């Protein structure tokens, strides 16, 4: 702990492998971000720049310092990609390259990591070596959509760099109006809550949609995120068009001795205040001093399992719920994903194929019915959930809504 405390002070020395400190121009504003205990990206950049003396790094630091002074950004987009692909490189040209010629180009290559964001050091070192060879050496782990972002390369090095990465098993990520890179939680890789193999599902799905990911030509983007359980550690419901959330159908599994042990350790007040009272549907009650779960009322929120991980676990009949339409703020305001398939098995390869078929059907419907730059959630809001269900052939289920409509404004079929 001593050492840890020490590291917490302002004196943290980063960039110990760095150059002689003479390469970069002064960046007094940015230098302010070297202060304080949290690891500093500026220290990292400076270390890298001084060591490698890549002009692009000096140019980007200069332009960033200039942004900090003028409070404006100076990048503009463009179109760079690799042979046969239509996306995957985010192109950046400086709008003020006359001032900072070294910052003329600063493109980002989006790379799809392994599901669950797992690495071994060989993979990662290889990635670093290739990247240092062709690019700036700046890497973001990870972008919010889940990509490894290799930031800072010039157009004429992109293809070569890609070829080398591709040989090592890496492929570009999504951009534009197509399938996007996905994210999955660690799931069965460590977590006792995982209700399906979300890493495998992620891999299968994204391999299946590799075409529209590389050559985007839908209305707009489609993002997939895979969470092993309703804790939704990938923020799938909020941030993806298709959220694949592990769940179960039968009763929560209970280890009575572990319940007793928990109660003994934490006291009866804790059972009442932290478990019973926080169950959203009051599915848990105290009967003769014992905690009883009425599984008919459980909505699989995960809370009681989270509080008592040793005592409670998901049921045995496991699978996924599918939610659709999540996206953030732009235009219509935040739209969270809505439940459209309450339960689906996701164990065998056939289950996964069936799932892929469903997703294809959904995307086809959207591609036919959506407008330009309209996320699928927006399309559904515009045409109505009912039309979507009919279009895709999904069965209606009361779990799709929080309540039946409060207005009589529909044309009846009869």
């Amino acid at each position, binding site marked *: 702990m001593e*050492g*840890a405390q*020490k590291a*917490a002070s302002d004196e943290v020395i980063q960039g110990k492998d760095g150059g002689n400190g003479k390469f970069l121009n002064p960046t007094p504003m*940015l230098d*302010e*971000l070297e202060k*304080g*205990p*949290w690891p*500093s*990206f500026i220290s990292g950049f400076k*270390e*890298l720049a001084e060591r490698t003396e890549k002009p692009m790094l000096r140019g980007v630091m200069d332009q960033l310092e200039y942004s900090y002074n003028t409070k404006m*950004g100076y*990048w503009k*987009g463009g179109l760079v990609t*690799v*042979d046969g692909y239509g996306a995957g490189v985010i192109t950046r040209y400086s709008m003020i390259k006359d001032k900072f010629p070294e910052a003329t180009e600063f493109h980002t290559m989006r790379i*799809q*990591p*392994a599901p*669950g*964001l797992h*690495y*071994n*050091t060989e993979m990662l070192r290889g*990635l*670093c*070596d290739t990247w240092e060879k062709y690019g700036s050496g700046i890497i973001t782990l990870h972008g*919010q959509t*889940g990509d490894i972002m290799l930031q800072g390369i010039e157009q004429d090095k992109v293809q070569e760099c*890609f*070829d080398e990465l591709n040989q090592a*098993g890496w*492929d570009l990520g999504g951009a534009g109006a197509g399938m996007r890179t*996905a994210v999955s*939680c660690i799931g069965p*890789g*460590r977590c*006792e809550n*995982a209700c399906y193999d979300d890493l495998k599902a*992620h*891999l299968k799905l*994204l*391999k299946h949609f590799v075409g529209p990911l590389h050559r985007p030509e839908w209305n707009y983007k489609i993002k997939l995120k895979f969470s092993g359980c309703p804790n*939704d550690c990938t923020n799938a*419901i*909020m941030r993806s068009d298709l959220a694949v959330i592990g769940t179960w159908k039968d009763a929560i599994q209970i280890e009575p001795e572990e319940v007793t042990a928990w109660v003994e350790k934490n006291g009866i007040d804790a059972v009442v*205040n*932290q478990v019973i009272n*926080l169950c959203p549907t009051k599915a848990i009650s105290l009967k003769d001093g014992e905690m009883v779960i009425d599984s008919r009322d459980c909505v699989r929120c*995960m*809370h009681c399992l989270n509080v008592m*991980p040793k005592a409670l676990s998901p049921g045995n009949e496991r699978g996924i719920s599918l939610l659709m339409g999540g996206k953030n703020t*732009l*235009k219509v*305001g*935040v739209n969270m994903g809505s439940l459209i398939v309450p339960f689906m098995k996701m164990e065998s390869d056939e289950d996964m194929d069936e799932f892929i078929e469903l997703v294809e059907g959904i995307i086809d419907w959207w591609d036919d019915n959506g407008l330009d*730059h309209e996320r699928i959630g927006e399309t559904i809001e515009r045409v109505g959930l009912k039309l979507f269900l009919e279009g895709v052939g999904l069965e209606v289920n009361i779990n799709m809504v929080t309540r039946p409509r409060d207005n009589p404004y529909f044309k009846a079929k009869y």
Partner: protein
Amino acid sequence: MSSPEKKWKTVESGPHSYEEALHPVVRKNYGKWKYHEIPKPGVLKHVAHSGDAIYTVRAGTPRQDTVDMLRRLCDVADKYSDGYLRFTVRNNVEFLTPNEANVEPMILELEAMGFPVGGTGMCVSSVSHTQGWLHCDIPATDASGVVKSMMDTLYHEFRGMEMPNKVRLSTSCCAINCGGQADIAVVVKHTRPPRINHDHLATICELPKAVARCPVAAIRPTVINGKKSLMVDEEKCICCGACFGACPAMEINHPEHSKFAIWVGGKNSNARSKPSTMSIVAHNLPNNPPRWPEVTDVIGKILTAYKEGGRPWERVGEWINRIGWKRFFEETGLTFDDDMIDSYRHARTTFNQSAHVRF
């Protein structure tokens, strides 16, 4: 490996495979975990049905990393976790080892290298953030700089577990909010309709696209100096910035008029309450590089009140729902104003359609 001269035929492989990246103990117990414990901040212990246990040590990173830094992390992994490491969805790095004895030395080494160990359980974890001036083409501020400034003040909270529940932060450099909904979020707020750069527009803008992008139909075609151009109905415009994404001549960003807003109560998990979107609680904060003190100040106020008043397992939004928004504003010292009343599409669903009143 093939030589650089040789033209490689692309393999459209999609995501990198993961099996080789899993620690052998993980591979063995894959999908057969029984429970977990959090022995101390930054450390997880997962026990499998087989009886095997795996320890995780988690540390914060700047996210905008470099090959130098990653190589150092690889060194740690080679030394303590058999060459395996992963990243969390919040940019923290994790080292998984079955060897409990490696945990403490690894912590010491990571902290000595400047990587704070923590981010587990009821703490403030790393910030989900975006690109900003470093790389994006539409930002009104920087992202990593704001985050660094915030996390410096929350360093202790990352390394402890003293909050009522997890606290997730996000920051975003434009109103699009790539950073996402969070317990507390810092997001740029456009405050003025876009100024149209007519010269620029003539050369680069797909006019109908920009017109179509506006959610409130505030953009109309017009003719300026004999050239087709656009105009904005400033009465209608809601300063969303969507047009700027479609056409860089719709200049929404401004060194002074681009401000910050602070949002609270976003929740992504389904635990207890359903996922919820966040609410605005402060705006008109200046875009003040390099350290944005006004922003970190507000974050501090909110976290102080939550830490003091939240009950175990209550997320920020759940805490507010219990004590009421009135008390939230009182206890944080922030001010509710009429701009915070929703005026968008579903505004009426946020009105207090009841006689329930708090005095």
